[in-house]
């Protein structure tokens, strides 16, 4: 039997969530020890005696047994979860208590509570995302650091800081709390950031990035299982993630180089994800409030529905960008809007938009701003300006893949230009 690639990562998140219910959020390290013990047990047995039929259930049982040992040893020495209190004192109540914590529904609820707890508003967003990845997704500090281009030591510090804040809160977030709605906003924001980091992030390690998108998708679907969280806005966020994730296989071309939307091979887009995304987008249309997630998902849906760049309804794309820009102004949104305008009204019009972006100084370090200018210059025939733009962009490239992509673009306009 082959091993699911994400087995240990996923089970780590589930076991920690289950154990937090009993140990209390201040004993996260103890829960992590139990996870390690369960994993060690698996390493002792599986290689020689075979991977069990249901490895997840096996690990859960191993963790349950280890947790019982720990509780018998620690129940007098430590303060565990306050709500559990005296149930720990008796052998009669101890085992059923642990079994309940490991029940499928309880684990799901505890994972949700953990997700809400990680998005504690006193923590900066990048700490929230690091906590979600570490605790719920089982990513190590090193992996998270490389995805976010941060040093490992700095990431360890960031996670430790988050865990201290979590510990201070004593219990996990109560899903019936009055603060639920604003906290739900923060949760969506963190998942959106997580997904974007995977999709557009600067990390050069592409496999990690696809995994970030996968985890964001998994968590948003978990969030939708909670009726109070399954609002139109959450549905729109889920739709947007599906529709973008569908394009992930097209982001690298057959030579392994970055391919922008306009040059992607659409036949490798994931039809199933597109269908699910469109279904979610339909369901998200029930509310009265139009969120940025709705608009971004709608734009992605226009692209997903178009068989080619030429057959794209650019008019629709531009007007959706207009509304998105009005709702949440950002130079990156304006940049994408300008590219759509160029598709609709030609490169000159697009260049005027690009040069007039509000807050464009914030794009000063973003390689795809000069690259977009260069593309449009090339399209209208000014190769010298195009070359200059690509050179600036290369200087700003954040990783080898971006640099190679931009160098290819520069070379292509040198080649095309040599005959002129």
């Amino acid at each position, binding site marked *: 039997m082959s*091993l699911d*690639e*994400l*087995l*240990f*990562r996923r*089970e*780590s998140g589930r076991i920690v969530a289950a154990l937090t219910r009993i140990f209390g959020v201040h004993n996260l390290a103890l829960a992590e020890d139990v*996870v*390690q013990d369960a*994993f*060690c047990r*698996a*390493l*002792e*047995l*599986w*290689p*020689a*005696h075979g*991977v069990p039929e249901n490895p997840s259930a096996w690990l859960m049982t191993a963790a349950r047994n280890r947790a019982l040992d720990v509780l018998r040893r620690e129940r007098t020495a430590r303060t565990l979860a306050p709500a559990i209190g005296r149930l720990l004192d008796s052998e009669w109540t101890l085992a059923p208590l642990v079994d309940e914590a490991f029940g499928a529904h309880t684990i799901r609820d505890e994972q949700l509570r953990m997700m809400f707890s990680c998005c504690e508003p006193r923590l900066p967003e990048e700490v929230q995302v690091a906590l979600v990845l570490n605790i719920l997704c*089982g*990513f*190590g500090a*090193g*992996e998270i650091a490389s995805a976010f281009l941060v040093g490992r030591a700095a990431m360890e510090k960031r996670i430790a800081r988050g865990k201290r804040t979590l510990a201070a809160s004593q219990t996990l977030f109560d899903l019936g709390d009055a603060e639920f709605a604003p906290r739900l906003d923060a949760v969506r924001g963190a998942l959106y950031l997580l997904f974007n980091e995977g999709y557009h992030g600067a990390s050069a390690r592409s496999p990690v990035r696809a995994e970030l998108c996968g985890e964001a998708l998994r968590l948003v679907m978990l969030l939708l299982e909670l009726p109070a969280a399954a609002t139109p806005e959450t549905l729109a966020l889920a739709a947007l993630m599906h529709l973008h994730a569908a394009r992930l296989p097209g982001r690298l071309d057959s030579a392994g180089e970055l391919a922008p939307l306009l040059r992607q091979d659409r036949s490798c887009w994931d039809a199933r994800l597109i269908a699910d995304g469109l279904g979610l987008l339909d369901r998200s249309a029930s509310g009265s409030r139009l969120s940025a997630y709705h608009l971004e998902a709608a734009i992605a849906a226009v692209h997903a529905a178009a068989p080619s760049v030429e057959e794209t309804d650019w008019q629709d794309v531009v007007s959706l960008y207009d509304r998105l820009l009005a709702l949440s102004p950002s130079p990156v949104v304006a940049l994408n809007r300008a590219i759509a305008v160029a598709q609709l009204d030609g490169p000159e019009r697009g260049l005027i938009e690009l040069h007039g972006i509000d807050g464009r100084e914030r794009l000063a370090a973003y390689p795809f701003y000069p690259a977009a200018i260069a593309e449009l210059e090339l399209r209208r025939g000014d190769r010298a300006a195009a070359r200059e733009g690509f050179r600036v962009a290369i200087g700003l490239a954040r990783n080898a893949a971006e640099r190679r992509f931009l160098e290819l673009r520069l070379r292509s306009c040198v080649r095309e230009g040599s005959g002129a």
Partner: protein
Amino acid sequence: MSEFIYLYRTNPESRRAAMGTPEQAQKSMQAWLAWMRGLEAKGHIKDNGQPLDMTGKVVRGKQRQVTDGPFVEAKDLIAGFTIVLAKDIEEATALASGCPILDGEGSVEVRPIASMAP
């Protein structure tokens, strides 16, 4: 074909480090599964062996003195064993060099199982 026993020696820290993070656990497990399956596929496994707990007792000397395992200080506890079939000690040793325990601080002791013949 002769029989050999592989005695896996390691220390508790190294064992835990092999499963320290989910990513590491995934890698370690995959390496071990691949190694054992490789041996099995080529007919080298005689007995899959058993894991040994890292705790225990030692009975020593004329006084029959019983102590909790020598384990606390030990740097190379036997964590488990496998009985393999190989042409000779050279082949058995060569096969052992693929063991993932060597990626940590562990070692594999390769011992011929002595013949019962007089």
